[in-house]
């Protein structure tokens, strides 16, 4: 006992020293960045250093690190690390789900898209709400009843062998990486605008904070960071929306009229076609991506395991849907209302006639126009909190895919030492942090809403069909899942690479081979068909065994009996 106590005290001392170092680093950084912003020449010197923004930024960073410190003391098992030991209440989880999903891509990307392209940008919002409502009814409860740590637990519940788990873990990682790119680019731009700091240093700082949150605080810290962020974001969004509407006698119609009058598109701003050009296939593929993509996002699905049972998951998703519905209405008001406020106002444009900081900064400029430096600083800090909360969730999901799915279940066949698994989870977090920086640099110039949508495309085309079929179709076999899912995954990646966003904008080719923004309208049906085809062709004994397990799985998915044992299969 005495040795254990000594060891505990030493560990606490080391943790204390570690956090002190981090606090020192942040303090030094704040002073240096302040100095940098005052002296750097070029485009960024046009930004005034916002002391209030910097202050809120560091208050948030310190607060979240304090939460992480508190959470770290409770994160002593893999259950606590991955799922907060199922001890999160439905309302808390709903806020965290909303906090996890209402990303920088939503706040910054969609408002920017609507500001320039008009109504079409809203397609990135309404499909999502429909998707959440459908997910509530057909996925949430069954998912909670069948899995324990990751969504791969659910898909591989009755399927034999490791190949399914390897494939799905790989899909998880690819989805997470794409999603992470969007968040990192948003973070880099935001801090660049706030501090006048080089983009690369900005994303390195985000990466460091993200690694700290997740590696020490696991799901508990991540949940709290996401909850706080959701409340701040809703509060900020509500304030901006009401402030915007107040300028037009609280008339939504008057606000839109003012926007139409100043925008070069005129009335076309509110008509379909401004972004997707009335191209039916383009519209349908984006809409379907938004709706079905969310049903295959590993970091979102993982949140269903943080509540006690299926009823908790059900309530979580319903509350989250309501919260997000309100938020997306704020997004509509901000995105279109910003036009009336900012369009043509010289203080928000650089010498080249482009909006300062790029299209992703429309929401923040709106905050400045409405509430001066105070609101600008507050919303900048909220946007930063948004990014940190989302990247923390993503990183946690990535580490679970690596440590739980690949290491503990595949490599160690479910017999891994929990302490070693936990250690590998934390190492994975660091690797993901480094990777996030590299990818953030490569994708710097992309619109972050578009990059994030790639994640949704893979989730909708591979993860969603497999998840749905595994829960509802007796005929699914591991061979069907691996060959069908694998081919769909490759097909989806190839099409994404051939699309404009990669083939032209990243690889520098003149025209895109695949002319549409997203591939889902092609790849999702292909996913269903291929998995079905290779499953029905499977006549092996293993396939018979897997099909025979369906009835028991179905009863468990409906009732939740034995739910905690699900992933131990």
């Amino acid at each position: 006992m005495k040795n254990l106590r000594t060891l505990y005290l030493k560990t606490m001392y080391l943790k204390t020293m570690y956090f002190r170092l981090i606090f020192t680093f942040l303090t030094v950084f704040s002073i240096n960045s302040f100095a940098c912003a005052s002296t750097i020449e070029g485009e960024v010197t046009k930004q005034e250093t916002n002391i209030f923004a910097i202050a809120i930024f560091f208050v948030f960073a310190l607060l979240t690190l304090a939460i992480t410190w508190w959470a770290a003391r409770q994160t002593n098992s893999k259950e606590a690390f991955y799922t907060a030991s199922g001890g999160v209440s439905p309302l808390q989880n709903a806020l965290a789900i909303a906090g996890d999903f209402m990303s920088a891509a939503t706040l910054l990307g969609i408002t920017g898209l609507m500001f320039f392209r008009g109504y079409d940008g809203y397609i990135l919002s309404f499909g999502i709400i429909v998707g959440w409502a459908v997910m509530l009814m057909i996925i949430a409860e069954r998912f909670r009843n069948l899995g324990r740590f990751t969504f791969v637990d659910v898909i591989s519940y009755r399927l034999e062998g490791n190949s399914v788990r390897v494939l799905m873990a790989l899909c998880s990682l690819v989805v997470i990486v794409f999603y992470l790119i969007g968040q990192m680019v948003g973070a880099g731009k935001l801090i660049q605008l706030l501090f006048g700091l080089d983009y690369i240093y900005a994303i390195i700082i985000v990466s460091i904070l993200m690694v700290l949150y997740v590696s020490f605080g696991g799901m508990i810290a991540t949940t709290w960071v996401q909850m706080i962020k959701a409340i701040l974001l809703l509060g900020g969004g509500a304030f901006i929306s009401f402030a915007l509407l107040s300028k037009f006698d609280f008339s939504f119609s008057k606000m839109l009229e003012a926007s139409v009058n100043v925008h070069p598109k005129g009335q076309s701003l509110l008509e379909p076609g401004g972004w997707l050009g009335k191209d039916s296939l383009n519209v349908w593929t984006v809409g379907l991506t938004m709706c079905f993509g969310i049903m295959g996002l590993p970091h979102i699905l993982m949140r269903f395991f943080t509540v006690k049972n299926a009823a908790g998951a059900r309530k979580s998703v319903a509350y989250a849907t309501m919260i997000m519905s309100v938020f997306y209405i704020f997004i509509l008001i901000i995105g279109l209302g910003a036009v009336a406020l900012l369009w043509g106002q010289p203080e928000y444009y650089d010498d080249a006639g482009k909006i300062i900081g790029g299209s992703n900064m429309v929401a923040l400029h709106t905050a400045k126009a409405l509430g001066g430096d105070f609101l600008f600083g507050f919303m900048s800090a909220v946007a930063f909190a948004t990014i940190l909360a989302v990247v923390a969730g993503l990183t946690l999901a990535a580490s679970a895919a690596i440590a739980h799915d690949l290491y503990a279940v595949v490599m160690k066949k479910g017999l891994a030492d929990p302490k070693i698994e936990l250690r590998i989870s934390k190492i994975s977090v660091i690797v993901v942090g480094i990777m996030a920086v590299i990818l953030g640099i490569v994708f710097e110039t992309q619109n972050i809403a578009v990059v994030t949508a790639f994640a949704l495309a893979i989730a909708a085309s591979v993860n969603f069909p497999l998840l749905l079929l595994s829960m509802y179709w007796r005929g699914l076999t591991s061979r069907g899942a691996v060959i069908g899912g694998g081919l769909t995954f490759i097909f989806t990646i190839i099409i994404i690479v051939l699309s404009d966003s990669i083939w032209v904008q990243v690889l520098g080719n003149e025209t895109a081979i695949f002319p549409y923004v997203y591939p889902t309208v092609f790849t999702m049906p292909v996913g269903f068909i291929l998995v079905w085809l290779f499953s029905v062709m499977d006549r092996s004994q293993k396939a018979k065994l897997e099909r025979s397990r369906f009835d028991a799985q179905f009863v468990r998915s409906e009732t939740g009996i034995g739910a905690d044992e699900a992933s131990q299969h």
Partner: protein
Amino acid sequence: MIELKAAHELDVFKKLVRMRARIIWPLSVFLVLALAGNLYLMSAGSNIGGRLVSENGVITIALAYSLGLIFLGASAAVFYVWWANKYLDPLMEKVCAEISKLGEGA
């Protein structure tokens, strides 16, 4: 595992599955069709979606429809939770009790 497989044949379990299916599938299909309606309005371009809701205003049919769709999605979520809490959970308890009896019998 054995009692769960046997539970699949229980009348009360079949009733639970039927009851849930009667709500979730029609409602889900309805929501997806409502989404399809919005996508159709956008695909058809300003010919339909771009028409104004009122002559003196600027709000287009597509924009109004999208707002309605968000309201519909949130309402469906509220309805489902209310319905599941009131009707599904009590039946679920019965099913679990029946399955427990099966386990004791085995």
